[in-house]
């Protein structure tokens, strides 16, 4: 912040040399500020927005240089990904085996693999480049529900190599497929294994499909998933930031981190580089600490927070996932009759964490998938607020995929926010309809319309690397609610394009408690912009996801996707 200096002491020209003003013109600037929704120019000084308006309005700020390179582009507030994991950058070192096309950090589009043979072929290509015949070969994002036989066996992967361990983690991250060598190295290649997560073939040996992280963890190590599968590293964080620029994102979350001292050092150092293009919010998750330890750690983390590496927020994980049948559902439970899921926290622990966080003024985002888990979070916050009233806590439900109308009404009373997993409809909506929760509840999963109608501050997310980081694609999902098979699932819960754009800008900013800093283009905020080739409010809603991203401006620094 600059302190005003009396005019007579100002050396006018020096003053301007120190703090250059750049005025950007654009074809259209969508501000997300309802008082001035569209402007033609935005003035930037010292990384912040001086003002948004016409050129003649902005020249009043004094000397400036006019930057017209975005003359034919659309500017929006920098997009905000409110639920992602920076580890995606690291996963791109593995072979992409997804069914859908996906862009890597360097802008290469990896075509989706339409058959299992395509998967094998791509893995074989990579195999040829490896010299050491025992080196692991690792893939990610495979989704066998799209393939006719739906099963991937170790024998299929043995065709790629029998001398090196091979592992491919599935798109949902619940399952891993491995070859015989990987099973041998981890001592799974034997008869007599009895475990629901390890299906056996006719020969009594594991088929190579390993279900559940507790099952595949030890094999994953052999198959090249070194270290912590959820933790970024230096070059991975840089690659993650490249993905952000390519998708117009200037603020992103790393939503489940352990945040050891070493990792915090890496995060601060890397994001502090002058050319690091994103603001990262890294949340400490609750697992492995007592409530007291968690609060103490996060309090001290908060003190280490920097502009681009924000610390001091907590992620609580209440239950598991719906497609893994580990989410906690209220009656009538799973459509296919599967038993109710698992708690990842005891109600007493959640209450202790909520109470202490409210007292210490720390914000919590709580992962719930099932509606019973949401009930617990609501009950717990209601109780905690009685003890430690707060009028600005911004506690947020993350995913909240099965939140129903009554729960939103309660959330409104409790001043809660939600960040819905809009991408889920597209990738797994058909599965939810057919198998996990059945048609009625599948149609109201991630019920963005009802959330907004109840006045709940809304964000929407990708949960990258589970689905691709791309807020415009996420907006497309929330607006169109199409499943992969092409059905509209939940017509009633659709939101408008304008509402979706709110959810990926100011809505997401609100859930991170930085709506005073970012999320709209108006005087005083950070100069964070997404630079787009087309106008998302002008293209047909079905084309939202196809809008090209030129790059970003973050804190006044320009990042072109083409040279990131």
């Amino acid at each position: 912040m600059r302190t005003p200096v009396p005019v007579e002491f100002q050396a006018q020209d020096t003053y301007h040399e120190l703090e250059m003003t750049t005025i950007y013109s654009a074809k259209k600037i969508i501000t997300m500020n309802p008082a001035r929704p569209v402007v033609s120019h935005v003035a930037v000084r010292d990384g912040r927005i001086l003002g948004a308006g016409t050129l003649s309005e902005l020249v009043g700020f004094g000397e400036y240089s006019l930057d017209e390179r975005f003359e034919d582009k659309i500017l929006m507030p920098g997009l905000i990904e409110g639920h992602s994991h920076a580890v995606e950058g690291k996963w791109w070192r593995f072979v992409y085996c997804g069914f859908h096309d996906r862009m890597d950090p360097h802008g290469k589009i990896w075509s989706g693999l339409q058959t299992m043979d395509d998967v094998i072929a791509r893995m074989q290509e990579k195999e040829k480049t490896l010299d050491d015949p025992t080196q692991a070969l690792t893939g990610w994002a495979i989704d066998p529900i799209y393939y006719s036989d739906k099963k991937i066996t170790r024998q299929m992967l043995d065709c790629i190599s029998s001398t090196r361990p091979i592992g491919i983690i599935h798109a949902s991250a619940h399952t891993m497929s491995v070859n015989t060598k990987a099973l041998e190295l981890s001592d799974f290649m034997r008869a007599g294994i009895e475990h629901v997560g390890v299906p056996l073939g006719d020969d009594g040996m594991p088929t190579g499909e390993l279900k559940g992280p507790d099952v595949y963890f030890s094999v994953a190590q052999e198959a090249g998933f070194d270290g912590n599968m959820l933790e970024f590293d230096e070059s991975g964080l840089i690659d993650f930031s490249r993905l952000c620029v390519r998708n117009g994102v200037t603020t992103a979350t790393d939503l489940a981190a352990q945040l050891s001292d070493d990792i915090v050092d890496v995060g601060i150092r890397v994001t502090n580089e002058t050319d690091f293009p994103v603001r990262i919010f890294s949340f400490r998750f609750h697992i492995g600490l007592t409530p007291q330890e968690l609060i103490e750690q996060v309090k001290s983390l908060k003190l280490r927070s920097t502009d681009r590496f924000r610390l001091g927020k907590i992620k609580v994980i209440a239950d598991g996932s719906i497609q893994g049948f580990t989410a906690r559902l209220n009656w009538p439970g799973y459509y296919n009759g599967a038993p109710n899921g698992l708690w990842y926290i005891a109600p007493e622990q959640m209450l202790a964490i909520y109470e202490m966080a409210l007292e210490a003024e720390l914000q919590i985002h709580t992962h719930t998938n099932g509606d019973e888990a949401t009930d617990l979070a609501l009950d717990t916050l209601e109780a905690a607020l009685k003890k430690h009233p707060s009028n600005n806590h911004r506690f947020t439900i993350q995913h909240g995929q099965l939140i129903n109308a009554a729960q939103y009404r309660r959330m409104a009373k409790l001043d809660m926010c939600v960040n819905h997993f809009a991408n889920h409809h597209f990738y797994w909506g058909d599965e939810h309809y057919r198998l996990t929760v059945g048609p009625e509840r599948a149609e109201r999963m991630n019920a963005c319309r009802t959330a907004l109608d109840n006045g709940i501050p809304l964000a929407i997310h990708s949960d990258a690397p589970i689905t691709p980081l791309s807020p415009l694609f996420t907006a497309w999902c929330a607006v169109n609610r199409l499943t992969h098979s092409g059905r509209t699932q939940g017509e009633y819960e659709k939101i408008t394009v304008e509402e979706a754009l709110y959810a990926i800008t100011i809505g997401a900013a609100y859930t991170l408690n930085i709506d005073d800093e970012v999320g709209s283009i108006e005087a005083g905020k950070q100069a964070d912009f997404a630079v787009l080739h087309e106008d998302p409010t002008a293209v047909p809603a079905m084309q939202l996801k196809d809008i090209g991203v030129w790059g970003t401006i973050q804190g006044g620094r320009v990042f072109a996707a083409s040279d990131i």
Partner: protein
Amino acid sequence: MQAVTPVTIIGGYLGCGKTTLVNHLLRNANGARLAVLVNDFGELPIDADLIEAQDGDVISLSGGCVCCSFGDDLSRSLKTLRALDSLPDHIFIEASGVALPGAIGNSLSLLRGYQLEGVVVLVDATSVQAASVQKYIGDTIDRQLNDADLLVLNKMDLLNDSQAIELRQWICEYYAHAPLVEAVYSKIDPAILLNIKTGRNSRDASNQADYTHDISSMYSSISLRMDQQVDVPILAERLSDKGCGLVRAKGFVMDYDNSIKTIQVVGRRWSVTNAPAGVETGLVCIATSSELTEEKLRSFCNIEVTKQDAAKLQCGYFD
């Protein structure tokens, strides 16, 4: 071939006394080197006077014992244990309050070199009935109790007589699958979970049960000579049958092929493995009822009493 390390899982909801039980076992390890794996180091799970040093995820304890935290990756911390100078004699996994201990046992079955000896689930006698119908955690507690090979009804001193009777009836009605021991401050006979010596020197085991008087009177131990050949799995299964009245049996017996096998019984779970070389046959059994006699045990398990055995009867009791 690696040595097989016995593993016992200690489960139960928050506040049921798992940590107290772990400390009780560490204090009565009697030379056995125990490793304790906990979900987290929260609220330091180990009494301060037992701790010698802490190095990252590993806490060194007196008597060569260690404590490791495993977060959500059990297999990794078991690897950490394997990397230590010498393998522990026995591993105890203290499950988190919402964990399903049976699922941990299942994951363990995937790793070679470990033998699941039993799933012990502690029950807070003062609150379990109310908690079992609580909206959020009722079914979790139900699943935990159903996972138990051995149930420990803890905090019994806080119940009056009629409450205790009612609780026993309730357990009997819903959770009759597993043998039951009652406890105060988690103080069960350590020999129920720790490996007690068997064979001719079985009387040594009685020294290990040297803690509080009032508790030891709740148990009776029976030491059996086992000079005859038996069908080992059938015997192990009989010993683990609730009708047998045992909470624990361990020993070495001779199979029909003359090989010596180790029998381990914790509650309703039994296992049979090849015995180490040079052991002498014999079984030590612990019951919670003083009415159990060697004759009853032998007849339930179909073990004929030989003349030699009969001569040893008089020294078959610990208490």
